[in-house]
């Protein structure tokens, strides 16, 4: 009797193992989970991510993915986290436990990523996030499985800082959304303020559902900063641009983080954004790229393909596109499609993507390098590279 029970248990466990194996290596499809903001306040991002992922998956599946001596296809499993951190966690758990995915792409923003990193790390599933907060990939010893595509927040702040030094800007005010993403931006500037590199004369926060920042803008402008830095995503970034224009603040002294996206002037800001700056990848001005380096050409190709398929380009699209490309590269280089191989392989990867150049290492899981970021300005209603 006892022997029989043990046999059944062994069989059961054995069958379970076999099933897991088959999903990870035997099947002709590689399941990749996607945890993004298809609805809620950040849905503008989620829409761009999903389009970009479908575009890249289609291109990859046209030739298939070489895994050892097999050719497989990518299977995206896209779930909506409703822009809600708690929802994001249940999406991630479901992707890992029910869909048995090889890797996860997401969350699409810092708040929806921060809520899942510990769980994903504990379950040893490789994750590539589109959130920008540095805390997503640090401290590195607790983030062995976690990677991200956007540049680290201090890197973006650094690009702006260089411009400020060139222009003699000393006093700045920061407007930031009151969540993990905005907090990371604010902290970067507070650190620079403490280090004596800039004078942060004012910082103002707004809730992630607010729709009018006249009060915050009025208070910031009253401190007479040489520049106003905005850490917000659309549509809030657009409303901030409008409110700054209403307050007659000069547009060439307004700087947006990457999060403002290409949608800044499409969604909401309209002509109010003319003359304002944003730190982003060169890809946003894809049609103006003339360089012939592999990185520049990858950016230009993605810009062209996406614009052809979907009309307007999105600043968020390349972040998701690269997340998928990075995972596929890791699988090809590692020769296997299991979670451990993907993680180990990602950590050694150097890759020229649509968003820029990635140089991952055991100490750096954090997104495109500074050389891929550029300062863009809205000129005649389109993003233009500054010299």
């Amino acid at each position, binding site marked *: 009797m006892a022997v029989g029970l043990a046999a059944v248990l062994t069989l059961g466990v054995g069958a379970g193992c076999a099933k897991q194996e088959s999903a990870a290596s035997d099947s002709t499809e590689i399941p990749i989970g996607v945890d993004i903001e298809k609805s809620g306040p950040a849905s503008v991002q989620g829409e761009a991510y999903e389009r970009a992922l479908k575009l890249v998956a289609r291109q990859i599946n046209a030739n298939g993915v070489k895994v050892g001596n097999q050719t497989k296809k990518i299977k995206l499993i896209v779930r909506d986290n409703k822009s809600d951190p708690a929802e994001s966690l249940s999406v991630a758990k479901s992707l890992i436990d029910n869909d048995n995915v090889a890797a996860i792409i997401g969350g699409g923003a810092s708040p929806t990523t921060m809520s899942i990193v510990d769980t994903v790390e504990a379950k040893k599933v490789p994750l590539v996030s589109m959130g920008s907060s540095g805390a997503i990939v640090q401290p590195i010893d607790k983030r062995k499985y976690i990677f991200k595509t956007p540049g680290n927040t201090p890197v973006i702040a650094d690009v702006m800082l260089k411009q400020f030094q060139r222009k003699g800007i000393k006093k700045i005010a920061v407007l930031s959304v009151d969540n993990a993403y905005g907090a990371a931006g604010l902290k970067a500037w507070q650190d620079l303020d403490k280090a004596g590199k800039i004078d942060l004369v004012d910082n103002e926060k*707004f*809730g992630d559902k607010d*729709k*009018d920042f006249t*009060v*915050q803008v*009025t208070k910031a402008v009253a401190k007479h900063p040489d520049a106003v830095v905005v850490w917000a995503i659309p549509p809030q970034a657009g*409303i901030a641009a409008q409110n700054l224009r209403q307050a*007659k603040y000069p547009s060439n002294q307004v700087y947006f983080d990457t999060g403002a996206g290409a949608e800044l002037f499409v969604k909401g800001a*309209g002509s109010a954004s003319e003359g304002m700056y944003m730190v982003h990848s060169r890809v946003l001005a894809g049609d103006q790229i003339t360089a012939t380096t592999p990185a520049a050409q990858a950016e230009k190709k993605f810009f062209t393909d996406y614009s052809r398929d979907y009309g307007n380009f999105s600043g968020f699209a390349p972040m998701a596109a690269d997340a998928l490309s990075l995972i596929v590269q890791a699988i090809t280089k590692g020769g296997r499609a299991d979670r451990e191989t993907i993680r180990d392989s990602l950590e050694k990867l150097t890759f020229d993507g649509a968003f820029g150049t990635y140089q991952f290492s055991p100490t750096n899981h954090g997104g495109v390098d500074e050389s891929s970021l550029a300062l863009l300005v809205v000129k005649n209603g389109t993003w233009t590279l500054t010299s």
Partner: protein
Amino acid sequence: MTSLAQFVVTGFTTGATYALVGLGIALIAQVTGVISFAQGEFVMLGGLTFALLEEKGLAAPLAALVAIVLACAVGVVLERLVLPRARAGRTDQTIMLTIGASIVIEGVALVVVGTEPHFARPFTKGSALSVGGVHITPQYVWVVAITAVVLVAMWLLLTRTRVGWAMRATAMDAEAAQLSGISPSRMSLIVFVVAAALGAIGGIVLAPLQSPDAGIGIALGLKGFAAAVIGGLGRPAGAVVGGLALGIVERVAAGYLPGDFSGYSDAIAFALLLLVLLVRPTGLLSALRVERV
């Protein structure tokens, strides 16, 4: 000082929408005895429909008209749903019903339109005017002017027309109004439609300033309720004053709190509501209240 003036101007604009919602809530409460928590949804319906149609290229006045008509139609459905319970004296049920209706309206909007905010163009182009250092965009002027016109029209309706008298009479004494041949169910229908139109207009004028999305209704309904209660639920004029006061206090408080807290303007509004309920349950204007039967 200039900052304060700027906060007041901004608060006045948002407050105008609270005032229109609050006025609708007060009128419905007076004529039918129903407290409707669904009135914020009409701001959403009006604003979102207007912005969507405008994005699709419809002329603004036509888009506004369609938005108002849609809101009024939903108002009729809401009234038919709620009134039988109100007649039976089931106040608890009517409140739950309006909350339920609010959730359903939002849900339908989410399914049909999705979660994205939509942007309407300002009614007229042009940059902000500067009056003594205070920046006023043309849309602010539109919001204030249209709200003022609507309020004057409402006042004329209530004081100068037979249907207005009939509404006030029903509010004062429904049975005596019935004895004069006034149908309470007709008055109830009219007041729900009027309140829906008020909300929709509030949503339309605000749409170019604060991109509406399907989820804005519930919070606006609560703000409107706060406005009505702050002004004393029995007085239409009180709801208007309450709404404007709420909008201004919200912005001024956000303006003078340290930057770390300026994201909490909603909490300020509800703290104010609680304070009024505790200190003066009959509303701030109750001292000015004229005798009512």
